[in-house]
């Protein structure tokens, strides 16, 4: 079965550079989530999108932005990179059906991640 595809798998950047991470959800999934996992840390939620609209926002720095496109893939844009941005970035997708004010019974499927190293 098709899974969540993330590209690139590895990325090396210099400080103050920009980076773009891409996520292709499982076919027919309409919701994507971005998580950041620092070395030895648990994944931290950054942002999510449902039907191309931002659905939730976590601890995403102002230097980062993201969007979901009409084909449901998503891109995470990172600018003015800092050493502390070095981490594993995960994308997850789910089939939405979000109802405002209620917990969505989404099951999130994760990609293999993009490992970003900022030098």
């Amino acid at each position, binding site marked *: 079965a098709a899974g969540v595809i993330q590209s690139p798998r590895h990325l090396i950047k210099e400080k103050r550079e920009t980076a773009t991470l891409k996520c292709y959800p499982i076919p027919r999934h309409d919701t994507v989530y971005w998580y950041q996992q620092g070395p030895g840390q648990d994944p931290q939620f950054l942002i999510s999108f449902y039907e191309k609209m931002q659905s939730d926002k976590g601890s995403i720095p102002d230097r980062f932005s993201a969007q979901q496109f009409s084909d449901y893939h998503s891109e995470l844009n990172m600018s003015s990179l800092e050493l502390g941005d070095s981490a594993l970035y995960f994308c997850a997708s789910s089939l939405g059906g979000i109802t405002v004010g209620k917990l969505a019974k989404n099951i*999130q*499927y994760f990609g293999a991640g993009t490992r970003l190293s900022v030098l």
Partner: protein
Amino acid sequence: AQSVTQPDIHITVSEGASLELRCNYSYGATPYLFWYVQSPGQGLQLLLKYFSGDTLVQGIKGFEAEFKRSQSSFNLRKPSVHWSDAAEYFCAVGLNSGYALNFGKGTSLLVTP
């Protein structure tokens, strides 16, 4: 504040022995609970989930977990561990404000011969 606690940072078990990984949550509403496993350098694989109903849930790879509301726990168990089970295990809770997951700090499982 909402939180997920995995009290054990590292656990070592012998191959063939039973396993229990602990997870406690502090959460206002009825939570949605998940266990994920992460092998080194890999993504997160869903082992099992609890939404409602039967409090004992079965997952993949022979894992099961039991939801105990009175103890705010969702412990993961396996009757007989295999060497390939060595990995990082994360308990996660569905957040009330949206649909993001709140992860515990993880438990690293080492399996010895």
